[in-house]
């Protein structure tokens, strides 16, 4: 299959060592440079003698938060970093780069699970208040750790509680699913890459705010589990946390496609700026870590398709595949991982709000990849359609015309992707 990028052939060395290359990737990927989100990155990223290149690097000693840390916070004690270790692993040499793709991916897995994307005051409250864990979808694992929540010392020297990619983009799974998952995606009781649709960060933030005597923005409680509002523009536009597989096939990032994937380095640049923004623009991640993360995300795969006994009759599948070719494939291109270019939000049936936010609104929605779509419910950018059937009936302009046996056949085919 062709991939949705390939304008150039970046290597780790070019991303790591060539500021002009990074700047070029950023400029070409932000195809709407007029938007505030784009302007904020263009003003400061990869300028060389000014801007974020001058930031001090992040500290890399972190530890997953445990029940013991929760008890310390409840008792008013300081968090200990005695159990912290480098993100790259105990005894790792920060000057030594991985020697091959497998080693980059392995490092990326640790970054995904252990490098704090941002500190957050509400996380400290969350860790220290175990009675709300179940309510907001936090699950203590058998080893006492909380997935995706770490402690570390920030650039100011203060001990913080931060979240990693694994808080939102990994999901608790049953033993059978875990056994079937690739080793590089297993993360304790969870599978990396699959969004945690039971995690309610809006509620967690609201409870934390109220606990400190500050009235919570009522919009936080409206997000619901598995959804967050990623823009700070005064407009309440919570979106579904996406699964992270099929990255090699994507043409754009973010629901409104504000970032065009122009190179395999686009996601590394994206992650780098994401960490900088998350840490209040006070520090930057080591680029070897963001390159490793980009390689890891590119390697993530959905769980295997259903086993043979549950696969529908081949005739139905064939009919579904033919229908897909007729009705769906012009946008969800099979040769591009069933993803496609952008579509005007005004041509779709669902809420255009996310496509028109002041900060990142392009007027378009990206056409998502359908790889692993059987695991993607609820559907659409805002998670408003609970099933593929409801999506076809209510949420998709071409789906309405497909009903009865045709709809069943199409869904049967989609569930094999």
């Amino acid at each position, binding site marked *: 299959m062709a991939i949705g990028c390939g304008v150039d052939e970046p290597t780790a060395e070019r991303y790591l060592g060539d500021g002009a290359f990074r700047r070029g990737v950023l400029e070409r990927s932000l195809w709407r440079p007029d938007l505030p989100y784009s*302007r904020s990155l263009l003003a400061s990223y990869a300028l060389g003698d000014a801007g974020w290149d001058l930031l001090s690097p992040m500290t890399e000693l972190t530890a997953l938060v445990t029940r013991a840390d929760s008890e310390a916070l409840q008792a008013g004690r300081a968090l200990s970093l005695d159990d912290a270790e480098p993100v790259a692993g105990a005894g790792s040499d920060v000057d030594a780069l991985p020697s091959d793709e497998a080693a980059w991916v392995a490092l990326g897995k640790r970054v995904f699970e252990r490098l704090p994307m941002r500190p957050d005051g509400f996380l400290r409250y969350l860790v220290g208040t175990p009675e709300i864990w179940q309510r907001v979808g936090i699950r203590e694992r058998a080893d006492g750790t909380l997935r995706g929540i770490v402690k570390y010392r920030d650039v100011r*020297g*203060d001990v913080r509680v931060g979240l990693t990619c694994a808080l939102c983009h990994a999901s608790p799974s049953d033993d059978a699913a875990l056994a079937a998952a690739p080793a590089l995606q297993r993360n304790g009781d969870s599978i990396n890459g699959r969004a945690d649709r039971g995690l309610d960060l809006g509620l967690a933030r609201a409870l934390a*705010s109220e606990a400190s005597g*500050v009235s919570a923005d009522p919009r936080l409680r409206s997000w619901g589990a598995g959804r967050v509002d990623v823009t*700070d523009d005064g407009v309440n536009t919570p979106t579904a946390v996406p699964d992270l597989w099929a990255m090699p096939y994507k043409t754009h990032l973010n629901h409104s496609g504000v970032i065009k994937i122009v190179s395999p380095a686009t996601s590394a640049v994206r992650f780098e700026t994401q960490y900088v923004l998350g840490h209040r623009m006070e520090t930057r991640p080591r680029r070897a870590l963001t390159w490793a993360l980009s390689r890891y995300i590119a390697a993530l795969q959905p769980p295997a398709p259903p086993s043979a006994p549950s696969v529908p009759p081949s005739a139905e599948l064939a009919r579904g595949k033919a229908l897909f070719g007729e009705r769906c494939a012009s946008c969800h291109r099979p040769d591009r991982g069933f993803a496609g270019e952008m579509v005007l939000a005004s041509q779709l049936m669902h809420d255009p709000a996310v496509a028109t936010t002041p900060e990142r609104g392009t007027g378009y929605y990206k056409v998502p990849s359908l790889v692993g779509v059987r695991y993607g419910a609820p559907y659409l950018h805002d998670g408003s359609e609970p099933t593929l059937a409801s999506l076809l009936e209510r949420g998709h302009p071409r789906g309405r015309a497909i009903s009865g046996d045709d709809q069943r056949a199409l869904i049967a085919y989609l569930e094999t992707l």
Partner: protein
Amino acid sequence: MTRFKTTFIALCVALAALVSVAGCGTDRAFESRLEVSYVSGHLGTDQGCSSNAKLADIAGACAADVPNCGGYGGCEEGAVTLQLANTGNVTLLGLQLDSLLLQIVGGNQSALSVLDVKRDDGSAFDGKLEPNASIKIRVRFPAPGYQKVPKGATIEAVIVTGGGKQQRVITPELHVLPTVAT
């Protein structure tokens, strides 16, 4: 005699020229030079702020391990980080922030009150900078709030040396701190 006098005068002129050049060189050798570069900045956020809370006591600003350190709502001051470089070869003393001006995109200019000026590692800034050294300082100010700066703002910072020399830097357009950042 005349020839000797002419030669003597020529030597004096040459010597004077040398002294002059040397004098300029001496001045340059002890000249202090401050270069100020923009590093990063944001306008903070007033989300989750309590109207009666001290900004410095909010969770984003105080150490996470300090008991009762404040709110959890994400309230955060604005901040600008600058790099100060001494490219001369005398120690700079008495460096300080002279003024901080907010220029709202499409709006007015106003002076910002400064909460504190520290080095970027959180340590105190003593206003001293050795030759050929550079440091980063972080200037914090109250978040103006999204409603006031929906389209962002630039900030002009003026740094003065103990000798009264000024260096001015204007940031690119800064924005409210994202509370989710994804």
